[in-house]
């Protein structure tokens, strides 16, 4: 333990409103803590900057999964275990279930929340690629109101998000339009459990008469933040999977993906490896569509 816990304050205001009020009263002074599975690691390592923590783990207002207006709404306080157990999510968003299932360990999944996963904004986090591929939107709340934005605009840079200090992530919304899409996700981690992604790719696409439509690709660890691979999507839009065209489609797609890859060398892997494997995963997806 590299932190002196006596130097930290932890409060659990009774309601969402109370939390928002406190955040608004002293912006930047308090940090929300949900499952704590990120923040406690930072505390142990002695690098937790915020001294005053407001628990939001107990707020029922933030923990829900419901279908409304052809959208699936997920409260930010929903745990990975909640996601894995939800019949609605299993039916509509299999990639999200899959990514929740390989996040950390069972203990992590019982505490860790989807809100914490995206607000922590690690480029390697597990649920963002699926949410990006599904074209999610997010709602942010503060004492002065709420705003909804495209999730792809939420990540501004390395560990930087659109959240203001007085705001919380309230919920995530995914349109239920993927019934006819082919879906793919793969995580390449350092090991099969308790692993941080070296690279991950989530993909959905429609195939109409051997042509691709509505291709959406979300990736982890390809750049400094979770990203949609829009240049690759553009190349693939309308591309042919016919046997005489498949190799060319793959070649162009790999080239486009390489063009929008800005992977790094770090303690877990190398940029070269990440770039090559991302291409291999994309190729695996495309071949599975053609096959």
């Amino acid at each position, binding site marked *: 333990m590299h932190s002196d816990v006596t130097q930290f304050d932890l409060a659990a205001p009774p309601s969402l409103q109370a939390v928002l009020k406190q955040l608004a009263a002293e912006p930047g002074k308090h940090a929300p803590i949900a499952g704590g599975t990120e923040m406690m690691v930072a505390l142990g*390592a002695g690098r937790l900057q915020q001294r005053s923590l407001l628990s939001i783990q107990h707020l029922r207002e933030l923990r829900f999964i419901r279908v409304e207006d052809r959208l699936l709404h997920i409260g930010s306080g929903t745990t990975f275990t909640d996601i894995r157990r939800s019949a609605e999510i299993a039916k509509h968003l299999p990639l999200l279930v899959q990514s929740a299932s390989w996040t950390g360990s069972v203990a992590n999944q019982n505490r860790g929340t989807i809100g914490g996963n995206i607000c922590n904004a690690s480029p390697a986090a597990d649920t963002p690629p699926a949410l990006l591929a599904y074209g999610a939107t997010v709602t942010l709340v503060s004492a002065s109101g709420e705003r909804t934005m495209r999730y792809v605009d939420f990540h501004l840079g390395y560990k930087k998000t659109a959240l203001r200090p007085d705001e919380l992530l309230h919920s995530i919304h995914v349109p239920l339009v993927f019934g006819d899409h082919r879906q793919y996700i793969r995580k*390449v981690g350092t090991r*099969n*459990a308790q*692993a941080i992604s070296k690279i991950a790719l989530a993909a959905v696409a429609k195939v109409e008469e051997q042509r691709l439509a509505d291709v959406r690709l979300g990736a982890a660890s390809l750049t400094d933040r979770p990203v949609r691979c829009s240049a690759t999507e553009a190349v693939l839009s309308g591309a042919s999977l016919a046997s005489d065209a498949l190799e060319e489609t793959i070649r162009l797609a790999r080239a486009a993906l390489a063009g929008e890859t800005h992977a790094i060398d770090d*303690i877990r892997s190398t940029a*070269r490896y990440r770039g090559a494997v991302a291409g291999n995963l994309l*190729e695996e997806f495309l071949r599975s569509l053609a096959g």
Partner: protein
Amino acid sequence: MPQRNAILGASPIRKEGRAKVLGAAQYTDDLALPDMWHGATVRSTVARGYIRNITFAHEVNWDEFCIVRASDIPGKNVIVHLMQDHPCLANGYVNHPDEPILLIAHPEKAALLRALKNIHIDYDELPGVFTIEESEAAVKALVEKNDDSRIIWPTPKADYEGGPNCFKTYEMYSGDAEKTETGLEAAFETADFIVEGEYATGAQEQLYIENNGVIAECFYTQQGEVESVCVRGSMQCPFYLVHALTLVFGLPDDKCRVIQVETGGAFGGKEDFPSVIGSHAALLAMKSKHPVKIIYDRAEDMAGTTKRHPSRTRHRTAVRKDGTLLGGTIEVTLDGGAYATLSSTVLSRATIHASGPYKWPHLRVRSKAMATNLPPHGAFRGFGAPQSLFGVERHMDRIAHTLGLTPEEVRRKNFLGTGDTTATGQPLVDKVDMQHMLTRALNEAGYHEKVARFAEENKHSLIKRGVGFAAFMHGTGFTGSGERRLNSLVYLDVLEDGLPQILVSSTEFGQGTNTILSQVAAQTLNLPYEDIRLAQPDTSVVPNSGPTVASRTAMIVGKLVERASLQMLETLRLQVHLPADHTREEFIAAAKAYRAQYGTLRASARYEPPAPIFWDDEKYRGDAYPGYAWAVYVAEVAVDMRTYMATCTRFDALQEVGKVMHPVLAKGQVEGGVAQGIGYALYEKCVWKDGHLANNQMTNYIMPTSADLPPIHVHFEEVPSIHGPMGAKGIGELPMDGPAPAIMNAIENATGISFCTIPLLPEDIFERVQSLGHPHGGTEDLDPSVDRDTRVEEVSA
């Protein structure tokens, strides 16, 4: 005649199992002594240099703290292992990152954090060497250019035998040195093939669950002089720490008391290191006049304590085209880190195991342990054998591929058998049947069917499957004359209730010492297992039965417990007429009668070799070990050419370890060792940055989880040995030796690519595949006599 209870060979529940499962077991950090303070270590942030200045910032009230420097040490500033080169606290000069410089203590643990942040040390940095190659280059610069700028050991320049940057060297011949040289010359001249290869292994962290930790006390005379010290903690070898304390404090043995408390795993990581942390805590206790507890956290433990020695092994082998070995030279080099610690004995075991389980008409092994500016490497399960066996077992496959034979054919041509002599000249008197072992292991694994099937399936799949195996042995007990020097002693007492208690310094740290020694005593005394107790290893109470290392506890200490038990029975039969084939009640009655008459009842047994053992330390020849455990391990792998990840998908481990004392524990030892071996081969990489372990957390030091491990099938052959109790031999380290070469052999079978460096991570496979120009690998036919291993080891920031 009543049936003897069959306790040995059964699997009674572990002696301390209940307490552990119920959470009642007390580990070091569960203990507190009255008025105890907490200690911490101030460590170097550079790899090598002179300490220019230490400043204590004004933000902290230093009067509240106890601060220990090198100058406070009452005895010698040294942590003694085999040499006296390793300072207890750096004094003006540091030789590796994370080297202890100061110790601080305070009543409040949290206060230490702020204090550590407010101590600043300036250095005049010196250039360091961080690999075997850099250390060798430094020696070359000294010899050729008289440039000693990177000679990092010994400091100060003492006359240690290895010479500059070299802790120790060995030269070992399979016979008379001169004749062997002549034989080698002829062998290389007449050979059909000469096969060369270089094989390298990385450092590995022991990763016991409980980090290193101790609590120390210091006692004073009325005149205020230090009278004695007492350290309790997590450790394997209490008497090693006694020895270390006698030097640091200048006290006699009996004034340095050490108590082992429940220990949460060790794997060798608590063999030599407790001498460091134990001395540190005792120094703080001495100066603060309070008991002091030091517990490392995971990050500190990983960065600051010992790892397995990295190695490089070079083979040059003369072979006939039918696969017969004609002669060979082997060079084994270990990276010992910044101080000698146990490197010379690790090197010794690496040297002796380098030949593998084969007949070498002429063999020369040269070995050396080099100094680098990494934290000292130390003991780790296998102790040098995994390193050199990796070399020889990869090399056997290379020979096979060069000759166009199968790996099986080459090994069968050369296996040692009963009556043969090993490379050290030891005649194998006990039965050894590696031919049968190989046949059985390959059958258990379905090896031949898989070789054929995978070769077909791989043509059409991006997942390449393969099988490979390794054949090997592990010497049980200390090397050569080591056991005689240890001169181990065991006591067996009968307590007031008429039931026995074993007194040994052999420690339990999860592997089963308590259980198997109790089984031996119960079996021999014909008492229920539950009746046997063990005294806590407290050096003021138990005799020195030697360190708990070297796979020696079952065979050597077990035998002593057996002998002490027999002696106790004899005493009772002679003195108080304990009947033959006694019942439990008769034993208790006799024991009580004896105690009533004589006061106490103690049997003891001191080590004597059950059969003559000859060993020549000068020539490094003779009976290297009292006994060997033999094994053939078969690995099956899948390499995904999309992600370049190699996964072990099935493992078969067949071993001959003498009588299996406790099948459940024995199987557990093998499964655990195989898991550790898989980690060694495919996952666990120490990322060093200027000598500091950069991935000193379990997030980034990738130990395999249960989700990464295959089904492990454990098989035994039982050939009783005269050296162990009821025929048992050692099993602790053996399972660590085989997995890495078996897995690399399987990967070559799967991909056609020969990898000779571990750990082998997906990034390494990727780079190698790229360099070969086959984007998806393939079953290309490499010229196996050319080493094309790229050894991509660097990790950029």
